[in-house]
């Protein structure tokens, strides 16, 4: 019953005398078979389509959004509860017409697509309102997976950032949401904030034609999630503190601040819903050093859903005088430390570039190129190559390109957190 999730811990447990920081990569793999808690409960899906005025230009944008939404509707399995919402400075029901979800079947899917085809664009953008309505729609849905897709092409202009932050705070952990930005007039940081709060992905779809396949894939992935609301529970010994817990693969995502206390020296971090997939987490614990020769359980990591423990792993610490043991760095920890730095230097480099600080931008993006190349993160290296000209990849000597397409810069920004999975022998 608990065999669906496997938890593996990769670390160098050996510490030198007095050392107090324990790092581990925790790999969690799910075979996607539903656990009893999730069986019998059905999924719910809300698709939010930006219908602000800007969606009219170019006209392909709205028509692509309609096609993509139709494809997503077609991907919904029979029995899934769903709704389509149009987003402007408020959120209105597209389908069904009443405020609620309907069960997907041949008839409702056809009706929904009809309604979507009649969508027109006019008005502002207030994403917090959209999410509030999604939350209300999900509220009546008992158990099961709750997933939303949010498509936008612009910035959250008709709502104060504090307003959006407040709404995110109230809907977080209630459903998951994948966000897509179409075109180049939206803000990466804004959409990332929403995606992270709602444990979803964020990506750019620069060419509206690409939307259909993306929507289909997103919906299919959501349909495949077998276990909703999974938490990473971390126990640490007395005197220890969790320095951070980050999802390290497939996408970097710091969940340190998302901890909720769940028992003595125990906290839980949200991981969202799981299908058949594998993720890596980087856990860093600061402990009270013990004597040389002593061994300590520095952390116990459990995956829990619905009060049931699905898998467990141990983070250990052993203090030794043997420096050949303690100076060894776990290749997994090293790899993801590098990937985290990669994301950071890309972000810093792009910010410096925007503010006209060529020197910093060149240094940071050069460093990023080294990290991407060394770690085999070819996707990121390719994205970087659209922003900088590489003079010497090994030494990170680059020149900023004079002309960079907005879409390329935004793609680099958006995907900077996509990590290369650590290679294992």
């Amino acid at each position, binding site marked *: 019953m608990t065999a669906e999730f496997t938890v593996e811990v990769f670390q160098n447990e050996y510490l030198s005398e007095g050392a107090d920081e324990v790092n581990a990569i925790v790999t969690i793999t799910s075979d996607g078979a539903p656990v009893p808690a999730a069986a019998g409960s059905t999924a719910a899906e809300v698709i939010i389509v930006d219908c602000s005025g800007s969606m009219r230009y170019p006209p392909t944008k709205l028509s692509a959004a309609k096609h993509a939404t139709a494809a997503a509707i077609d991907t919904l399995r029979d029995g899934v509860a769903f709704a389509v919402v149009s987003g402007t400075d408020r959120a209105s029901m597209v389908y069904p017409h009443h405020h609620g979800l309907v069960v997907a079947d041949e008839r409702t899917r056809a009706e929904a697509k009809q309604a979507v085809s009649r969508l027109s664009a006019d008005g502002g953008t207030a994403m917090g309102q959209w999410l509030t309505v999604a939350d209300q729609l999900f509220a009546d849905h008992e158990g099961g997976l709750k997933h939303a897709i949010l498509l936008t092409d612009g910035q959250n202009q008709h709502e104060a950032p504090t307003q959006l932050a407040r709404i995110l705070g109230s809907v977080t952990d209630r459903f998951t949401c994948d966000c897509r930005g179409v075109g180049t007039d939206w803000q990466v940081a804004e959409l990332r904030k929403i995606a992270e709060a709602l444990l979803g992905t964020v990506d750019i779809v620069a060419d509206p034609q690409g939307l259909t396949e993306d929507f289909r894939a997103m919906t299919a992935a959501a349909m495949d999630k077998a276990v909703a609301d999974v938490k990473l529970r971390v126990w*640490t*010994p*007395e*005197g*220890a503190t969790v320095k951070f817990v980050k999802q390290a693969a497939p996408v970097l995502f710091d969940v340190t601040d998302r901890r909720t206390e769940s028992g003595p020296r125990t906290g839980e971090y949200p991981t969202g819903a799981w299908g058949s997939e594998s993720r890596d987490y980087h856990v860093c614990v600061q*402990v*009270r050093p*013990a004597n040389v020769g*002593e*061994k*300590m*359980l*520095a952390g116990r990591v459990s995956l829990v859903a619905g009060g049931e423990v699905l898998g467990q792993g*141990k983070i250990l*610490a052993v203090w030794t005088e043997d420096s050949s043991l303690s100076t060894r760095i776990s290749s997994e920890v090293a790899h993801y430390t590098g990937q985290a730095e990669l994301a950071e230097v890309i972000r810093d480099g792009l910010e410096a570039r925007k503010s006209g600080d060529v020197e910093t931008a060149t240094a940071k993006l050069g460093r990023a190129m080294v990290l991407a190349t060394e770690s085999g993160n070819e996707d990121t290296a390719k994205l970087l190559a659209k922003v900088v000209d590489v003079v010497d990849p090994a030494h990170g000597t680059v020149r900023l390109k004079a002309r960079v397409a907005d879409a390329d810069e935004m793609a680099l920004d958006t995907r900077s957190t996509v990590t290369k999975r650590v290679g294992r022998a």
Partner: protein
Amino acid sequence: MSTCPDCSTPISEGDRFCEECGRNLLVRRTPVGGPDGSIAAACVCGSVSIDAEGFCERCGRAQPSGRERMEFVLPPVAGISDVGRRRQRNEDSMAFGVVADHGVVAVVCDGVASSERAEQASQAAADAAAEVLLDAAVDGRDAERATVDAVAEASVVVAQLAGGEPQEVAPSCTFVSAVITDETATIGWVGDSRAYWLAGNGSRTPSRRLTKDDTWAAQLVDDGVITEAEAKTDHRAHVLSRWLGADAGLVVPHVVTVHPEESGLFLLCSDGLWNYLQEVEDLAAVMPADVPPVAVAGALTKVALESGGHDNITVVVVPFPPRERGAGER
């Protein structure tokens, strides 16, 4: 002049106890509580909550445990208990002792994996039973009767380990014992830990298994429901029909006494060994010849480990007759 092995106080020949420390000078035995003396101690931080894997639930410190690989040699008897390759803990235990001029007593217990604190159950049972058997051997009492008493005592101490857990997961274990003198060997068992007689070269008493598993599969074979061959692969092969524990009540062991005519070895083991070496022929095929008992135990344990080590492995080897091999003897 000889001295007490514990406190080095000089002792006279014929002394049964050391005048200084009270040690029984006739009896040598494995340490009570296992290799580290105690398996349920409090952590140095003061907490008494130790989790199933031996970590303090408060400060995280690993509790000392030599249980992963226990190796005792008390000539002529030797035993090895190994955690194996798959299990987190070694829930098998062994206890044995030698009574000067009276022979050898040995016990192997296998903690039931589905029960709580199984390693405490097996250790407590083995220690308690060995104590009863050693006392009886010192006093020259009947070995079969002593075996029944030993199991009764082991039942009580294991039942006392039960705490707040549901009865079906109360600490429990299997049991196999041997009391071996120059003439006879008395074997007692409950559950699926086994004893074998392995004849030396040219012995007229053929090698054979001395115990019959208390498992549902074995019972079905007896009742003619399934064949011996089917039983080996049956999923009930390891489902015990009898064990020691709070949910088992007072248990009476099966007891047999054998009178080998020639020299050989007695082998007590847990299923972690016999899973891979079922029959005496299988054992004979991998046993090194003309090596001390500890080397025999080591070789058999190695085979089980190399075959996968899916369970804890415990092997106790007692030569028959139970004497140390002196110089010049082969």
